[in-house]
């Protein structure tokens, strides 16, 4: 076999190896899309097809007429953006100090960041439930937002620290000599340059809050505080077989923010997670 044919054969073999694995990843999602476009009769058919015999958009139209579902999207959008903005706001100055200072408190903060990822959620949930209860903040957006912000701080802190460390100190000093105070320097000099990093960090807390389910289930009880995750949970609970197409449509809608944002920022996500874990 000459080298050129050998190369082609290798490439084809690799392709044959990757296709089943990629099918495992992609097919479930294609089935979700397909289910969301099916009619009630078809979703219950014993011979499911990947491409629906009759493509309909009624499931989506019905969802947008469902007041509780629309409310859940609004609520989730509100709490996720609130979490994103406030997490960045409290983490940025702290990340700046961590990046620039070498105090004794900083290794302690680092160790806690690492440990906090290892703590079982249930250990946190019961005391948080009691703390929020004593502050009259259970079943309220401020209460849940506080929990989400605290839970997102570790990752955000380390992501931001990496970006701030890469910002040249000379530029910072120049700004100070020109009379900027630290906040002015953040906003006018540092932020424009490290904006991609800050946005990345923000988007991870946004998606984290959008996807979160357990705290939402435990803390948010009243119907007007429904979130996308708890609404889907309710759909799953009540859906007999006949509503599986609606459930698929709702699930698909809940994936949209993640799909858009992860496809833009995927390469930063891995480094962010491992960065937070190693350092």
């Amino acid at each position, binding site marked *: 076999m000459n080298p050129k044919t050998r190369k082609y054969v*290798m490439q084809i073999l*690799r*392709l044959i190896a*990757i296709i089943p694995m990629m099918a495992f*990843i*992609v097919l*479930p*999602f294609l*089935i979700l899309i397909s289910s969301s476009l099916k009619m009630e009769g078809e979703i219950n058919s*014993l011979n*499911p097809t990947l491409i629906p015999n009759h493509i309909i958009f009624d499931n989506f139209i019905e969802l947008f007429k469902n007041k509780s579902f629309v409310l859940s999207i609004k609520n989730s959008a509100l709490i996720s953006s609130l979490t994103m903005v406030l997490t960045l706001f409290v983490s940025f100055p702290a990340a*700046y*100090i961590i990046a*620039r200072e070498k105090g004794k408190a900083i290794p302690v903060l680092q160790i*806690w960041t690492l440990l906090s990822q*290892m703590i*079982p*959620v*249930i*250990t*946190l*949930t*019961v*005391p*948080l439930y*009691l*703390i929020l209860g004593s502050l009259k903040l259970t079943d309220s957006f401020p209460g849940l937002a*506080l929990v989400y*912000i*605290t*839970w997102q*701080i570790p990752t955000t*802190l380390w992501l931001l620290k990496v970006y701030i460390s890469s910002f040249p100190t000379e530029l910072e*000093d120049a700004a*100070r*000599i020109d009379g900027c105070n*630290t906040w002015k320097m953040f906003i006018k000099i540092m932020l424009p340059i490290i904006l991609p990093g800050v946005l990345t960090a923000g988007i991870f807390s946004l998606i984290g809050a*959008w996807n979160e*389910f*357990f705290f939402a*289930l*435990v803390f948010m009880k009243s119907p007007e505080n429904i979130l996308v*995750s708890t609404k*889907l*949970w309710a*759909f*799953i609970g009540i859906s007999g*077989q006949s509503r*599986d197409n609606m*459930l698929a449509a709702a*699930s698909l809608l*809940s*994936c949209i923010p993640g799909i858009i944002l*992860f*496809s833009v920022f*995927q390469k930063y996500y*891995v*480094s962010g997670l*491992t960065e937070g874990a*190693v350092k």
Partner: protein
Amino acid sequence: MSNKKRWLTRNKQEIFLFLLPVLILLISLSIYPVIRGIYLGFTKYKVGRGSGFNGLENYFQIYESGYLIKSFENITFMVAVSVICIYLLSISLSLLLNGRIPLRGLWRTLLIIPWAVPPVAKIAMWKEIFKTMGGELNYYLLQLGIISERVAWRADAKTAIYVVITVFIWGCIPFVTLSFLSTLQQIPKDINEAAIIDGATPLQIFRYVTLPYLNQTTAISMSLVIIWIMNDFATQYGLGGPGTSTLTPMVEAYRQGFRYGNFGYASAYGNMLIVVVSVILFIYIRAMNKRSKGVN
């Protein structure tokens, strides 16, 4: 202090003020709750009935309930099978994507799909696939002649645990594969070339060059996977099988704490999970240290 220096250094007050919000939040909603959570595991706290220290009483009661062994057995099995499958799939995918392969960009983009799907949507998705009547899995397996009659995947105590495991594997592949891939891309080209010149076979290169390079990434990503699976609630609860076939510490803790108001029990489960996670990490870190010493 000279005038210039005052401009250039941050004073103590500023450092303190900048750290303050994060410290307040971490202390009040992270550190304090963890300490209180650990303590609650040693009390008979029950909603409406008050609390009181009761030592190891919770642990004996949980042991006697019979759920302790079963739930830890289940989670150990889930973690073990998931970790092995995730590792094998991710390492194959990352090696394939790191080499010359047609449509590489497309595969990398498709790889992130499981990431974008929120946990509860994952349940909805897999519930449809594993349906007994009209579910895609049964349909295709029947068509291919692999099974002769429909399997009740979720209702059968034997298969239910694999349904949960499948969802874990599906969800963790993107993160682990991309972690491996980014490490593989950092391996200097000349090392591989030197190995080839020395007459190493591809298998030897994989064993003695690639794998040692991946050690640290493997340790970190697998520890995170173990912790994610142990902390997962949605999949374990939402796709769980009949009876105790898929019962896990997390699900049992939720049932005890937030169904029956047994906060003491729930926290006791949390404490046992802390012990398990610490032991796993300890063993893993030691193993990794030994291995890297052996290589050098």
